[in-house]
C-alpha cells in the first residue's frame, strides 16, 4: 500500500481542519462531537447520534451535508414507514407500448442520508437499512441497485421517549461505526447560541470540501500505517469485552464483534490522519474506543439494575486493558514518567 508524504498529510489535514471549523461554526460547544463525526465520516462509517431534542443533531448533519457538497436526503422515521418508502419501489410504467416495472429510487439514494428518529420505525423498516449500510446497495424485487458513493447514514434517536419506539436490533447497531451521545450545552454556550442564532433561520454555511477531496481523504485514511502493537491493542481491547476476558466484562452479557475491531482500526486511522500523522496510535484507539464499543456490548441484567451504562462499562474495559501486553518484573514498579512529552 503506498504511503503518504508529509505534504499530502498536511494538505489533507488542512482540509479536515476547515471542515471542522465550519461545523463548529454551526454547532456551538460541541467540538468533541464534531471531531468524532468527522472521524466517522473519514472512516467511511455510519453514525448514530443519541440525545435529547433540540441539541443540534439534525443541524449538525445538515451542516455536514452543506460543507461537503454532498447530496442529502432526510427521512423522518415513523411507525407506518415501509421499507419501500426508503429503498424505493418498482413503478408500473408504459413505454413503447409496453408496460413494465421501473425502479423508482427512494430517499436512500443519496450521499448523506439523515435517518431522523430512526427508532420510531418498525423493525421491518429498520432492517431495510441493513444491506444499504453494510454493502452500500439496495435489492428490490431481486434487482440490486448500488447506492451513490460516498454513502453515509447519520441517524438520530431520542433516548427518553420509549412509547411508540422500537429499539434498534443488535445487527443494525453493529453497523453503526459510532454511537455518539449528544450532551446539553453549558450556560456560556447557550448564551453564544442565543446571540448568534435566530429561531427558524438556518445558519449559512458554505462548502469547504468537494466530494473529490473528501474521497481523496477517505482513500488516504486507508493508507495510514497501523502498527502491529496498535492492532494487538485493538484485538485485546475487543476481546476484553467478552465475559470472562476481563474484570469489567463481568457486567457484559455479549461482547463486541470482529466488526468492532475493524471499526476501531478504521476510526483510529482516521484520527491519525486528522492529527497530521502517518500512523495510528494507542491514543487514537483510546479516543474512539468508547463510541465504537458502547453500542456493541450488551450488559447483563444485574449490571443494568446496578445502574451501569454501556459507555461506563466500555470505559472500564478501556481502563483495564494496558496498551502493551508486557509483563514487568517485580523488581520494577510503575512510576510517573518525568520527561513525558
Amino acid at each position, binding site marked *: 500500500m503506498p*504511503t503518504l508524504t508529509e505534504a499530502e498529510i498536511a494538505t489533507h489535514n488542512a482540509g479536515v481542519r476547515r471542515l471542522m471549523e465550519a461545523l463548529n461554526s454551526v454547532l456551538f460547544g460541541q467540538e468533541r462531537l464534531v471531531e468524532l463525526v468527522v472521524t466517522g465520516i473519514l472512516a467511511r462509517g455510519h453514525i448514530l447520534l443519541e440525545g435529547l431534542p433540540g441539541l443540534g443533531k439534525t443541524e449538525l448533519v445538515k451542516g455536514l451535508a452543506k460543507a461537503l457538497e454532498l447530496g442529502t436526503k432526510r427521512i423522518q422515521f415513523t411507525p407506518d414507514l415501509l421499507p419501500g418508502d426508503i429503498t424505493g419501489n418498482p413503478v408500473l410504467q408504459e413505454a413503447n407500448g409496453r408496460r413494465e416495472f421501473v425502479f423508482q429510487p427512494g430517499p436512500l439514494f443519496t450521499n448523506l442520508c439523515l435517518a431522523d428518529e430512526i427508532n420510531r420505525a418498525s423493525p421491518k423498516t429498520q432492517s431495510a437499512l441493513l444491506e444499504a449500510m453494510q454493502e452500500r446497495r439496495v435489492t428490490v424485487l431481486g434487482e440490486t441497485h448500488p447506492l451513490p458513493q460516498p454513502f453515509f447514514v447519520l441517524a438520530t434517536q431520542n433516548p427518553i421517549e420509549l412509547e411508540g419506539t422500537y429499539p434498534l436490533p443488535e445487527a443494525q447497531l453493529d453497523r453503526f461505526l459510532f454511537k455518539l451521545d449528544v450532551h446539553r450545552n453549558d450556560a456560556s454556550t447557550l448564551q453564544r447560541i442565543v446571540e448568534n442564532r435566530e429561531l427558524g433561520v438556518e445558519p449559512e454555511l458554505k462548502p469547504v470540501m468537494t466530494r473529490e477531496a473528501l474521497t481523496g481523504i477517505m482513500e488516504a485514511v486507508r493508507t495510514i*500505517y497501523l*502498527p502491529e*502493537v*496498535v492492532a494487538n491493542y485493538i484485538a485485546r481491547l475487543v476481546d476484553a469485552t467478552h465475559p470472562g476476558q476481563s474484570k469489567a466484562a463481568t457486567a457484559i452479557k455479549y461482547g463486541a464483534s470482529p466488526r468492532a475491531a475493524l471499526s476501531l482500526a478504521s476510526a483510529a486511522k482516521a484520527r*491519525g490522519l486528522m*492529527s497530521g*500523522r*502517518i*500512523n*495510528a*496510535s*494507542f*491514543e*487514537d484507539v483510546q479516543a474512539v474506543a468508547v463510541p465504537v464499543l458502547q453500542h456493541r456490548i450488551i450488559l447483563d441484567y444485574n449490571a443494568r439494575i446496578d445502574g451501569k451504562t454501556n459507555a461506563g462499562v466500555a470505559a472500564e474495559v478501556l481502563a483495564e486493558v494496558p*496498551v*502493551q501486553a*508486557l*509483563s*514487568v*518484573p*517485580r*523488581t*520494577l*514498579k*510503575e*512510576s*510517573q*514518567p*518525568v*520527561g*513525558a*512529552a
Partner: protein
Amino acid sequence: MSQTRPSCSRAWKRIIARTRRRVNLGWWLEWLGPVSMLFAVIGACVVLYLRSAGWDEASPDQIRWTGSVVGGVVLLVLGVTWLLARRRFVTTEQAMVRLESQMRLDNALTAAARGLADWPPVPEEMRGADGWAWNWPRLIGPPVVSAGLVALPFFLPIRPAEGVTVRPNEPMAWQEMEKWLEDLREEKIADPEKLEEVAKQIEALRDNPSEQWFSHSNLEATDSLRESLERSLSELERNTAEAGAALSAMAKFGNELSPESAERLAGEFAEAVQGLEAGAMPMDRKTLEALSKLTSEDLKKMDPQAAQELAQKLSQNREALERMLSQCKNPGEGEGEGVLSEKEILRMLGEAPGGEPYPSGGTSRGRGDAPMFHEDQESNLATKNLQRAVNPDLSRAAPGDIVGMSQTEHQIDKSPTSVRPGGTVDSAGKGGGRVWEADLLPDEKAVLNRFYK
C-alpha cells in the same frame, strides 16, 4: 534545542537500549533473588556440616578452596538465573513501544523505526521516561537475606563432632581368639608366623558381610577355629610342661641319676621338643632352637644353673598357657567367677522334699528336670469359677474363634405384677409413665393433656 535527524535517531536508540537493559536487568534480579536464597540455604547447610566435621575455615588452604567454591557457585547462580530470566527478556521493539506509550508519543517511535516518519525530538529530561522505578525492597531483600544465611553458620558456636565409628557387634569368639593371640605374641610363647596365620583366618571370617557374621556356617567355622586353636594351645602347654619337667629333673638330679634314668629323661625331653616343633602351634623359634640344640650329652653336662633357668622359662610359658586355657572354658563349664555354685542353684530352684538336692541335669546348662512335679494333693485349678475368656489380639483371630465369654444374668423385672383377687394388681408398673415422660414430643404431650383434661 534543534536536533538533526541522525542525532535524534541515535539518541532514541540509545534510550531504547537503556530501557531494554533496565527491564532485562530487572528480570534477572528478580530471578536472582529466590535462586540466590536457595543456594544460600544449601551453602549454609554445607558450612554447618563442614564446621561440625572439624573444618578449619581459618587455614590458608581452606580459604583458597572456599574462595574457589564460592566463586564457582556465584558464577553458577548468575548463569542459571540469567538463563531462567532470559525467557522473560524484552526486545528492543517492546522497549520502544513502552517508551512511546509512557511518553504519549502517538507511536511516533514505531513509525520512525519503520522509516515512515522522522524520529521525534528527544526531550531534555528523560529520567524515568519508561515509567518504571526500581523497587528497592524487592531488590535489596533477597541478597541481604542470602548473605545473612551464608554468614550465619560462621557465627554459630559449633563443636566439631567426635568421630564415632559404629561397628556392628561381632561374635565374641573372635575377640577372645585375638586376645589369646595377643597374649601369645607378648609372652613370645608361640611361633609368630603361625599366630599370624590364625589371625588371617579370623580376619577372613570378619571379611564376610556383617549380616552373615552370625549365620550358621560362620558360627560353625568360628567354633571350629576356636576349638582348633584351643587344642593346639593345649598341646603346646602339655609339651612345654613335659619338656620343662624333664629339664628340671635333669637339672636337679643330673649327677645322681642312673644312666638309664638319664637316658629316659633325655628321651622324654627330646620327644617333648619334637612335639613343640611339629605341633599345630609350634613354639617360639628362639626358644625352640635353644631346646633343639640340647642333646642327651649336653643335658648331662649342662650347668645346673642354666638348666634351671631354662626350666623356669618353660615353666612360665606353661603357666601362661594354662592361664589362657582356663579362660578358654565356656562359662558354666568350669569353676570361676560368674559360675553359680550348686547351693545357689538349689536355692534358686527350691529344695526338693527331703532336703535332697536336685540332680544336676546337663553338664553346663543347669538342672535337666522341669520345675513341675506331681503332688499328693491335686492342684486347685478353680474350675468351678466362671472366668471371662477374652481374645486380646483380635488381629490374629480366625473366623469362628470366640472373642470373649462372660457370665451374666437376664434382667428380669421382679416387681409383682400378677393379678390379685378382686381385680387389683400388686403394681401398676411404670411403662406408661416412662412413655409419657420421656418419649413424647412436646406437641404430643400437649395433645394428651388436652385429651385428658
